[in-house]
């Protein structure tokens, strides 16, 4: 029992055994490749298919309904191998440089199986560009140190460049003379010559006109062909260059992720962000696939267009598509999983009543004092403004550190209150709550000074869960507060009568009134005029009116409304 395949040749249906089918389709694609460069290649192809259909039809009858391997072999024997069809037929005989086109057969890019170290790519390229193989190999070797570029390019070329199998292909690889055509060619030349002499003698103008028209037509055709050729190759080159560029960027990114990255001290930061190592591995693999395959395919398409490779690897196209889809699904799964880890948000509140003192001085305990090996980059104002998270390495393990923030508001009673909000996310309300409670934060009070830590910390081996720490200081009416210069970036929100920027409120005493803080020693502070609605300067953009204000600066976008105290932050 043999499995059969149903095929359609020239509109006729055949049942054909599997091995016979493989043989036939290989044969047909060989013919197709042979005529690929010919102007009417498709027409010749369909004529040949029609003949094959006719021949196969003679092989089947009511008692023998299936085409078997022998039938195909017989058909191939009758039709002949593509190499026997004769390459001289595919040349355009009206081409102006006749001698040239007769001598040279079109050079095509193949892998050279006779001179190969790995896949014969280098020697094939060398034959195509007519240089010594050694130079191509040397270039390939040197390009390995360029982010392993040539390794990728080599793999792509190995996959898409066909191997020179037949003698004709090997000749085409070097673009050498196909000797066997010469006799036929000279016979034809002789006939043409005779014909021309005949024409001249008889002086047939009509004939000459026909010749001229034909020459113009075919020259125009080949010019058009050349234009398409150039456009195709240019696009191919652009694809290849773009692909190469993306590849370098992509490899650089991968190296950046897996080895070292400026602020992030150790690659173990991934442990802080991802649930587990497999989780991280999945995320990385899906990234590699989602971005790597398009880059790969771009290079693939570029090489195909540039070297006019017509043969299409369907297996490669399909599997690339499937793998890419898998990567997409994987990436989606990881994203959903990560999202679920952050689904719930909880906030924990701790209230402390502070003793009444004359003037409350607010200071900051700098991060450098809290974390011994605090990254020296933190001296930079930019970073304090950006207020991102820090991933610090200590003997205990890896810790996450984040900047705390302070808000000063009017108290609804006579006492001074400090409220510390700890917030975090988690996969459930309970977990989010626990994550929030885990936040380590300290402040101290000595005499009339209130000293806050600049950063909060998380216990070793905690995961990043969008932890935030927010301190709210509630002052009763009439209370005086002094902001030390260290709180410049710590003070996030303090409504005041003069609408002064929080960063400018340092080094001054402020008194709480019904309308917010009022400055007590602001002689030279340029108050912002109420007429000025929009201010754009190096700090950012500030828009305000009587009841609300919008700030766009390094901290993000903040909208404040006086009627209803509300602050939203948009990263």
């Amino acid at each position: 029992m043999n499995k059969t395949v149903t095929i359609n040749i020239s509109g006729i249906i055949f049942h054909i055994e599997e091995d016979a089918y493989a043989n036939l389709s290989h044969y047909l694609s060989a013919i197709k490749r042979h005529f690929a460069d010919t102007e009417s290649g498709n027409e010749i192809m369909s004529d040949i298919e029609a003949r094959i259909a006719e021949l196969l039809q003679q092989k089947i009858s009511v008692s023998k309904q299936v085409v078997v391997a022998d039938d195909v072999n017989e058909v191939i024997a009758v039709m002949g191998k593509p190499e026997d069809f004769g390459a001289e037929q595919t040349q355009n005989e009206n081409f102006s440089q006749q001698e040239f086109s007769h001598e040279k057969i079109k050079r095509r890019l193949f892998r050279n199986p006779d001179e190969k170290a790995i896949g014969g790519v280098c020697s094939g390229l060398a034959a195509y560009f007519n240089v010594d193989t050694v130079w191509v190999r040397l270039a390939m070797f040197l390009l390995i140190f360029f982010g392993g570029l040539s390794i990728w390019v080599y793999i792509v070329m190995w996959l898409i460049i066909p191997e020179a199998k037949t003698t004709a292909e090997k000749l085409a690889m070097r673009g050498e003379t196909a000797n066997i055509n010469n006799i036929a060619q000279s016979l034809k030349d002789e006939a043409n010559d005779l014909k021309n002499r005949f024409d001249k003698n008889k002086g047939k103008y009509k004939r000459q006109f026909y010749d001229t028209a034909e020459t113009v037509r075919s020259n125009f055709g080949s010019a058009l062909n050349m234009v398409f050729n150039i456009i195709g190759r240019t696009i191919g080159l652009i694809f290849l260059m773009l692909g190469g560029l993306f590849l370098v960027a992509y490899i650089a990114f991968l190296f950046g992720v897996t080895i070292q990255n400026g602020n992030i001290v150790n690659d173990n930061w991934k442990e802080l962000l991802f649930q587990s190592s497999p989780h991280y591995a999945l995320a990385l693999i899906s990234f590699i696939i989602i971005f790597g395959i398009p880059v790969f395919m771009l290079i693939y398409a570029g090489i195909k267009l540039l070297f006019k490779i017509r043969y299409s690897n369907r297996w490669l196209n399909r599997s690339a598509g499937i793998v890419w889809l898998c990567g997409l699904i994987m990436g989606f799964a990881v994203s959903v999983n990560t999202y679920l880890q952050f689904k719930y948000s909880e906030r924990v509140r701790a209230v402390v009543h502070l003793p009444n003192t004359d003037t409350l001085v607010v200071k900051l305990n700098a991060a450098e004092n809290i974390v011994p090996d605090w990254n020296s980059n933190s001296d930079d104002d930019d970073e304090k403004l950006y207020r991102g998270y820090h991933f610090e390495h200590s003997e205990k393990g890896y810790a996450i550190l984040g900047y705390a923030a302070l808000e000063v508001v009017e108290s609804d009673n006579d006492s001074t209150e400090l409220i510390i909000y700890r917030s975090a996310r988690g996969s459930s309300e309970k977990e989010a709550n626990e994550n929030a409670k885990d936040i380590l934060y300290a402040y101290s009070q000595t005499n009339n000074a209130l000293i806050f830590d600049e950063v909060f910390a998380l216990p070793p081996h905690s995961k990043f869960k969008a932890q935030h720490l927010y301190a709210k200081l509630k002052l009763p009416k009439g209370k005086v507060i002094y902001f030390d210069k260290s709180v410049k970036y710590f003070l996030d929100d303090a409504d005041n009568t003069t609408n002064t920027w929080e960063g400018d409120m340092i080094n001054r005493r402020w008194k709480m009134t019904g309308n917010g803080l009022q400055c007590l020693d602001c002689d030279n502070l340029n108050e912002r005029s109420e007429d000025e609605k929009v201010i754009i300067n190096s700090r950012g953009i500030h828009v305000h009116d009587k009841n609300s204000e919008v700030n766009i600066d390094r901290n993000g976008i903040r909208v404040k409304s006086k009627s209803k105290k509300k602050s939203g932050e948009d990263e």
Partner: protein
Amino acid sequence: MAKEDTLKFEPAAAQVQMRKGVLELCILSILSQGDAYPTEIIEKLKETKLVVVEGTLYPLLTRLKNAGLLGYRWEESTSGPPRKYYKLTETGAQYLKELQLSWHELVEAVNKTITQNS
């Protein structure tokens, strides 16, 4: 005959090439006796042992057609795919006439040379 040094001097190869060279002339001659589709042309050529493999014929027919020497029409077949019936055009007929004339001259000259020198 500029590439004589690269020619293969083998009788079998030479025969194949000779056949190919005159194939054009034969196809035109066959079609001058009436329209035919490739299979018929092949059968006639096979009688004269001019065609070694059938595949040779199709590119040649297409080329002759593209050059305006042949025309064609489709005809339904009861037993297989539609058939492409080729037909000699006026230019084709003229071309054939000229080609036949020069062929006869060539044969005569070649025969003369061979018999004189053998």
